[in-house]
Every structure is written in structure tokens, then in C-alpha cells.
């Protein structure tokens, strides 16, 4: 498992760790031994940059679109054939 994955999982499930990160992001990242590219991505605050560093089946920038489809009601008016 990547250390970035472990790091993010820890921050997501432990409020004390998250508080430490909020107080000192760079120091917390350095203490976790993350790489410079991982550090830059985390400090950028951009989701795609972080997700791109994790193993994924998803295409960068193409997360699932919102899950709703719109129903368009088509009213078809059939005109009678006066020839009949």
C-alpha cells in the first residue's frame, strides 16, 4: 500500500492527525516520509493532482459524472388522416 494512501486514510479517520496537519501541513508531510511530488500535490489542494498519484482505474479528470439522468417527456400529436 502506498504511503500516500496510508497518510490520507489516517487524516480522514483520525481528527487529531488532521488537526496536526492543519496546524503544520509541511511538517506533517515530511514526518510521514512522503515524496516531493506527493508533498506538492497535497499542498496544492487540487484533488486531481492528489488522486493521480494513487493507484486507480479512473482516467485523470474523468471521475464519474453526476449520477442523474433527465427525463424528457415528448408529447407526440398524431394528426388524423382525413383521406381515410
Amino acid at each position, binding site marked *: 500500500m502506498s504511503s500516500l494512501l496510508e497518510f*490520507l486514510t489516517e487524516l*480522514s479517520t483520525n481528527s487529531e492527525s488532521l488537526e496536526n496537519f492543519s496546524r503544520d*501541513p509541511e511538517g506533517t508531510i515530511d514526518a510521514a516520509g512522503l515524496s516531493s511530488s506527493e508533498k506538492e500535490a497535497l499542498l496544492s489542494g487540487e484533488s486531481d493532482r*492528489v488522486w493521480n498519484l494513487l493507484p486507480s482505474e479512473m482516467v485523470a479528470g474523468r*471521475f464519474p*459524472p*453526476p*449520477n*442523474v*439522468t433527465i427525463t424528457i417527456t415528448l408529447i407526440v400529436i398524431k394528426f388524423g388522416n382525413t383521406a381515410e
Partner: protein
Amino acid sequence: MSNRADQLQGGSLVVVGTGIKAISQITIEAQSTIEHADKVLYLVPDPLTAAWIASHNDSAESLYRFYDVDKDRNDTYREMVERVLTFVREGRRVCAIFYGHPGVFSTPGHECIRVARHEGYEASMLPGVSSLDCLFADLGFDPGVQGCQSFEATDFLIHRRPVDTSSPLVLWQIGVIGEWSLPTEPCNRAGLTALAGALVALHGHDHAVTIYEAAQAVTMRAHVSVVPLSDLASSNVTPISTLYVPPSSPPQLDQELVEELFGKPASTTSTSTEQRNDPTSTAKRH
């Protein structure tokens, strides 16, 4: 007459949500359901949540592969639902996971349950944290004060939904207006331009609106951008952007009804009424 339990087939389905902020918004009941399911299928927008799901149930399988460019989303969702039901029909306890709230802007979430129940299987949904819940928290917007009108942006436009300009309006999916498949661009400009025009007609060019995206992880912040409606069409918008449109006119007060309900004329009750409708008021109501 046989009871419902006799009629139920062996398999079952629970549809759960993982929230918007990766891992941290998964409810305890959703976690327990994931851990105890015979089969887990999921559709989540980030690899962190996907890894967490996989670590909590070995059977976890992603539904992401059903998406494709130029593929009708209805076909994608039909295939997802069929995949989920395959395991229910085998008699397994199935957990289907969708990000956010699994019943809010989630066609496959509802459809899985409808089909399962139609075929005689036990099926239920557990609520999750939706992007609207995050919006309430991040923008300090309480729907109990002035109400809340909410529409999917394409639906809002093509059906010409009537709007009360004295009540807040939330429009979802403003970056993918008119899109029917997996979007290849972050924003459909033609659709956004049409939306901006419709809103200008209601609120005027100068009305300030908020483009919002909830934070996707604890290390990230929500995107909050306030722009006048005249700039909306050219603003930075993505497929997950939501638009918050505050009211532009005061609500109409029914003087007679106020007197009937409160036992006094509207003029003497106006303070409390105005306070309740003032978005800047910090007064807490219980």
C-alpha cells in the same frame, strides 16, 4: 395468505453512500453494511475511497468500467443495475455503494432498489452525506430560513421550471448541461450560457451567485466562487459544480394570515418575520 417474508427471495440488497469527502463521511451503518455484505459493488469518484472499500470487503468490485465516452448514460446505468442484480439473484447479501447520498442525484441507486423489489428481493437504502449537505455547511445556508428550491440544471432549463425569486435556488450539474454521456470537457459552455441567460432574466445581470464544489478530501478545501450573473457563462465550472442563487426579491407577506396566525397585525410582528427571512441573520432557531 402468505406474509411478505414468505414471498421474499433469498438475496438482498442494501444501497449505501460514501459521502462527498473521501472516507471521512462514511456513516457507521454504511461501514457495517459494507463489512458484512457477501458482495460489494461500488461507484466512487476517487481512489482513496475505492481503496478503503477494498480494504473492508474482499469482494469489492468497481462499476466504473461501465462508463465510456459517447455512451448514453442510461445504457451505463442499466448495465450497472444489471450487474448489481446478478449477485442479488444468486442469493447473496449485496451492498451497492454510490458516492454522496445514494438516493440524491443517483439514478442507478434508486433503480437497483426498484428492480430488486420488483423481483421480490428485500432492498433498502441508507442515507449518506450529499453535496447539498456540504453546501449548507460551507455556505452557512439554512434551508429552514427562506426555503430552498433545487433543480438539476438541464431539467431546470428544458422544462422552464417556475422559480420564486424570494427564495434561494440551488442548481446541480451546471457544467454538464445537455450532456448525455461521459463528459470530455470540464464544462459545456453553450449550456452554461443558456443557464446564465435564464437566470439574468429572473434576477438581473448584477445579481451575485456562488459556484460551489464540496471538498473531496480532508486535505482539500471547498471551492467557493462568487460571481455576478453577467460573468457566469465565462466562469470556471466543472462537472461537479453546483450553483447557489440567493434571493433577489423580498417575500410577499400575507397580512391577513399573519394576523390570524399570530393574533396581531403584521406591523407588530414584522421584526420576527423579517429576522427569519434575513440570510445574514445569525439568530439560531430551534
